[in-house]
């Protein structure tokens, strides 16, 4: 295979909706001649989609993102938004209007937090005793206490935070980012999903769906069992030598002389070679055996409670290190949906992620990657200040005021933004709606949320979809 073909094939790598090798070859030639500077027919020509790095609208702060999604809705007033008023009112009737999701166990009694809060870092950020790890990275954290989606349930709020609107069928944030920016490593998927081994969160695969964007921009899931990445990893019985033999046999079969001079056939042979390289790259990034014991320990891989999440956080770092644009790390289905028995279940949930996430932030920082990588902690909602299920107290859903945090990638560390009311019920100060969050995030990636568009049904579609999203300047470093 000549060098030109090798190049063009690599350029074309992973692009499903593109024109094919012939077309790319020509485009490349033309580009070299400078003839494509003003494409004659921009609005009519079929757009060739690919994952090559793209130029953002302005200089970016962030290049990659790791979103640790706490599906179910962590209780902010028990983790990071202390509310002394709840202690005073504990067990009394809540005096304000409230909306319950679970009718059978609705109660009007106020529930105080069971955990002690302490100020951490130079910034003096409050965290409760069940997230000591968060405390240890307080000065890197930009804590938003005034998140709001204002919709009813898990599904809708996940949609709002992940795809801009409460309906199914729209592209996920990660799809938008890879559509807008491509990826830095053509040997790995641009957008990867590290799901929990037990099960997938509410809304299932819609969490990483490309919606109506080309399927090229969909998240690639790392599964809990072999083959870990469908289509990329061989089924167990073909792993290793059998597949090597297979490729060798196939290659000989394909080099039977008939293909001489046929660029398409030669490109196809090259595509198998490329596929094999991609397998190697993926296997390599998943294999953490070359990490030091200290690193593994930092992530809690030595502890049964944190082993799984820690391993996935570590893999997330390895992915970002290799140029993957967007990584989602999920906890299992409704892992944070503490309607009852919050006294035992919330600390258990925190334990699983606290040390690994602190490690992730520290590790990225140590490697000089935190400046360009956004780390996100948060779920789709918070919880109510009142009891649910008096027999085994928990808290019901609250999408009107909740917390999440971001670190790195241009977010201001050691900073608290916004506030809920004295009850932790509603965001009242510097409210950040899901579309503000999206506008801000895209801004840090060098993208203007009104200009990152995709044409569909004669309309220019955006992530924020005409909602009045504003870049929250106060939380930018």
């Amino acid at each position, binding site marked *: 295979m000549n060098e030109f073909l090798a190049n063009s094939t690599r350029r*074309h790598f*992973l692009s*499903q*909706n*593109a024109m*094919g090798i012939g077309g790319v070859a*020509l485009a490349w030639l033309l580009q070299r001649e400078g003839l494509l500077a*003003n494409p*004659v027919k*921009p609005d*009519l020509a*079929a757009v060739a989609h690919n994952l090559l790095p793209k130029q953002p609208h302005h200089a970016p702060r962030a290049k990659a993102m790791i979103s640790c999604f706490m599906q179910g809705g962590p209780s902010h007033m028990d983790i990071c938004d202390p509310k002394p008023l709840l202690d005073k009112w504990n067990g009394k009737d809540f005096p304000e209007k*409230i909306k319950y999701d679970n009718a*059978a166990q609705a109660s*009007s009694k106020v529930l105080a937090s069971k955990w002690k809060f302490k100020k951490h870092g130079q910034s003096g950020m409050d965290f409760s005793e069940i997230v000591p790890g968060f405390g240890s990275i307080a000065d890197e954290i930009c804590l938003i206490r005034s998140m709001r989606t204002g919709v009813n349930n*898990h*599904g809708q709020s996940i949609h709002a935070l992940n795809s801009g609107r409460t*309906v*199914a*069928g*729209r592209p996920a944030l990660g799809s938008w980012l890879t559509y807008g920016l491509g990826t830095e490593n053509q040997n790995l998927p641009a957008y990867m999903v590290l799901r929990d081994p037990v*099960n*997938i969160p*509410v*809304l*299932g*695969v819609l969490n*990483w*769906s490309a*919606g*109506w964007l080309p*399927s090229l921009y969909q998240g690639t899931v790392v599964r809990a069992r072999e083959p870990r990445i*469908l*289509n*990329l*990893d*061989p*089924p167990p*019985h*073909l792993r290793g030598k*059998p*597949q090597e*033999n*297979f490729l060798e*046999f*196939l290659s000989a079969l394909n080099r039977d002389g*008939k*293909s001489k*001079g046929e660029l*398409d*056939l030669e490109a*196809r042979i090259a*595509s*198998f070679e490329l*596929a094999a390289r*991609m397998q190697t790259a993926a296997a390599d990034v998943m294999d953490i055996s070359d990490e030091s014991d200290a690193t593994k320990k930092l992530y809690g891989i030595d502890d049964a409670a944190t082993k799984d999440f820690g391993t996935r956080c570590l893999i997330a770092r390895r992915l970002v290190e290799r140029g993957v644009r967007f990584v989602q790390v999920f906890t299992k*289905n*409704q892992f944070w949906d503490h309607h009852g028995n919050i006294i035992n279940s919330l600390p258990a949930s925190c334990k699983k992620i606290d040390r690994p996430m602190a490690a992730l932030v520290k590790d990225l920082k140590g490697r000089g990657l935190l400046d360009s990588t956004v780390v996100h902690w948060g779920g789709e909602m918070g919880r109510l200040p009142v009891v649910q299920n008096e027999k085994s107290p928990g808290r019901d859903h609250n999408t009107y005021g909740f917390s999440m945090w971001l670190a790195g990638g241009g977010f201001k560390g050691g900073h608290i933004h916004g506030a809920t009311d004295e009850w932790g019920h509603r965001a009242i100060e510097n409210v950040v709606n899901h579309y503000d969050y999206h506008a801000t995030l895209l801004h840090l990636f060098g993208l203007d949320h009104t200009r990152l568009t995709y044409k*569909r*049904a004669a309309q220019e579609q955006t992530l924020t979809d005409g909602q009045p999203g504003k870049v929250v300047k106060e939380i930018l470093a």
Partner: protein
Amino acid sequence: MRILLGTCSLLAALSVGAAPVLFEKDIRPILKEHCFQCHGEDGKEKGDLDVRLRRLLLEGGEHGPAIVAGQPGKSLLFQKVRDGKMPKDQKKLAAAEIALIREWIAQGAKTARPEPVDPNAVLITTEERNFWAFQPIKNPAVPKGAKNPIDAFLLKQLKAKGLAFSKAADKRTLIRRATFDLTGLPPTPAEIKKFVEDNSPGAFAKIIDRLLDSPRYGERWGRHWLDVAGYADSEGYTESDAERAWAWRYRDYVIRAFNIDMPWDRFIREQLAGDEMVKPPYNNLKPEQIDKLTATGFLRMAPDGTGAGANNAAARNQVMAETLKIVSTSLMGLTVGCAQCHDHRYDPIPQHDYYQLRAIFEPSLDPKRWRAPNSRRITLFTDAERKKSDAIEVEAKKLDGERQKKVDFFIKQTLSWKLESIPEAARKPLREAYRAKKRNAEQNALLKKYPSVRQISAGSLYLYDREYSGEISKLNTERKKLADKKEDPKAMEELKRLDARIKFFRDALSKKVLDAMAKKAKDLRATKPEEPFIRALTEQPGKVPTTHVFYRGNHDQPKTAVKPAGLSVVTAKAIPENNEAIPSTGRRTAFAKHLTAGQHPLTARVLVNRFWLHHFGRGLVDTPGDFGKLGERPSHPELLDWLASDFMKHGWQLKRLHKLIMTSDAYRQVSRRNAKQDSIDPDNRLLGRVNIRRMEAETIRDAILSVSGQIKNKIGGKPVPVMEDEVGQFIIGKENLDGERKPGKSADLKGEEFRRSLYVQVRRSRKLSFLDAFDAPAMEPNCAKRPVSTVAPQALIFMNNEFVIAQSRVMAERLQKLAPKDPDGQLAAGWEHALGHEPIGDELSRAREFVQKQTALFKERKDKTPELTALANYCQALMSANRFVYVD
């Protein structure tokens, strides 16, 4: 390619200094593309300048004359474009265009002829009318030198370049090529053998006849047309991309039409106006009437969100716009869409034309009297079926009523239980407050205090079951403690109380009871005969809407009214506004007649070009949906015309044309390249050999199913469902989501999953991932030509995809049965099934070596069936081979 050619021709025009540069021919197209929009069109004259005529350029605007003949340097027009000051948007003129303007002015700014007084009078110039695609179809004389006219035309151009046809392909290659071309499936070894052994002169013609008679032919060629028609089983437009339940009848109609070799003039007329061939009202329909109505499904293929939450003016307008796009690309080879907002920048389609074309369809897609998809359906229910269905509904309603009574009972139970935990004094007022139809302030306050009561509702009843179960088990524990105290009357008393209490909670358990009752009603309703519908396009009798030009394409800014007509550049006869003889307007019937009367310069050309494309891998015009200025010029204009005219002369029948093409020497050549041709005609536009072609997505999947032997051939019917799996791939299966939208296992599809790919549901937002990977089109709204990509994810599919691996194994089992205990026989049979050839040279020994090596490995790995697994891996390699996925 196009871009390059365009630029070259400009450069060529410049280098040939002798040819005078003329306004109409050379300059106006540039100005039309870049400048008319602000300087002339729509009455807009920025800077008081209209650039549509040379005269007006000389006159100039508020900054003085735009050109000074003979003096480019003093001409504002030239200065502005040279300095990049104009056009103001980002799209600047190419250097060659600027140079051409300079040359034109330098030569004295000449025109081809005197200019008219009114700039609006020259919406279409003579130069534009003279464009090749708008010229009448000629019937050129067939050159001498070949038996088949196709060969004669092709050889003429080959010889002019000192080239000739390549030798004929061997018989195995030929039958494989023909079988894939006509049926989209591989030939069986038996079919190959028969052909190889048939030495009669008409052997190949016999093969063609057999293939054309196969029902698989209509499936294969129907699929080609479905691309152009934009066939989909979903409505698109909105996020929900709602399912389109009855579109498949149109798909089946298309397959039928191909299989019976329906003449294309009729096929087009039925698709455009089949409804006007059937007298309303549409009930008790005969099969041929059903077919004609179904045919109009062609005009219902565009995305339509108006039945899925987007029944607004913009969405309605979009249905019309997309329908026009489908009609124009499929039947006229033009992209009229641009003229929706302004005169077409490149082709002679003034904005006015777009709306007169639109007027043809306005009575059927009338935005003022819009009908959402469901209200457009035509029922195929008979009276008897209707009666039966209604009777079942009456019974089902009774069941609903019974269930409602039970719901009321459960609410009562729940209420009385929740009241128990509330202070005695509050119970009565609280009960009244809950029950009250209209609550007063006091009652509202009371309920707010006790959300546990306020929240009780029919929809939340299931939530209490868990609590009741908890209570029951607690009571049972207490009960056990009393079991051995039978002598104690007090204990017995307590036991009685506990039992009553347990009964209370047992009775309150609602979910099972209500679910069962709901299921009973649902099951009963399921016994209703399903009401079949046709998805058709019809008009509303007696309604004749007026069509307006929309200012800048804005549907809320209607301007001048227009009358229905075809495109002006084709000089159509006007289309009557309303045919009084029939209930509908007859506009579409007239339009269809106009397209198929034999005079239209585009329709037949566009059709034969598309047929050609599917036989040779590229069209004579390789932009099959765009015969306009930005499209490609025909490689063989005479051949194209001859084919079009021959096609029409012989009754628009496609099967005859297939045979003519396939029996040509051109079609039967080898694909192998040779150095001489490569140097003279590297793109093989002259067809001195045949092109190798990557199979389409559907063909790859169908071929895999064929060689595994698992393919299930059955014509037509409802689509095979597509679902999302746990990682977000779209696979074949029935969607089975849990309450949190997570996918569960599909129900058994009973072999439907092995049907040909064209029967797999085409949901716009859920393209079957396997097909998607191999460039199956996104129907937005249709696909004039499929792209072919060669990318690593395809390779990964052949290496690791579950479908491929499963099918390889099925194929291996088949081979073991075909040649029991004969490993070499199995290998050879696999080779022939998959590749159409017998293994030659060392091919068999290499295959044997590979399988032995793999068998040993699998044995080592304690595989239960090492031989079979190795054979399967061999089959997988065959399926992955270039020779499998390419037709040569």
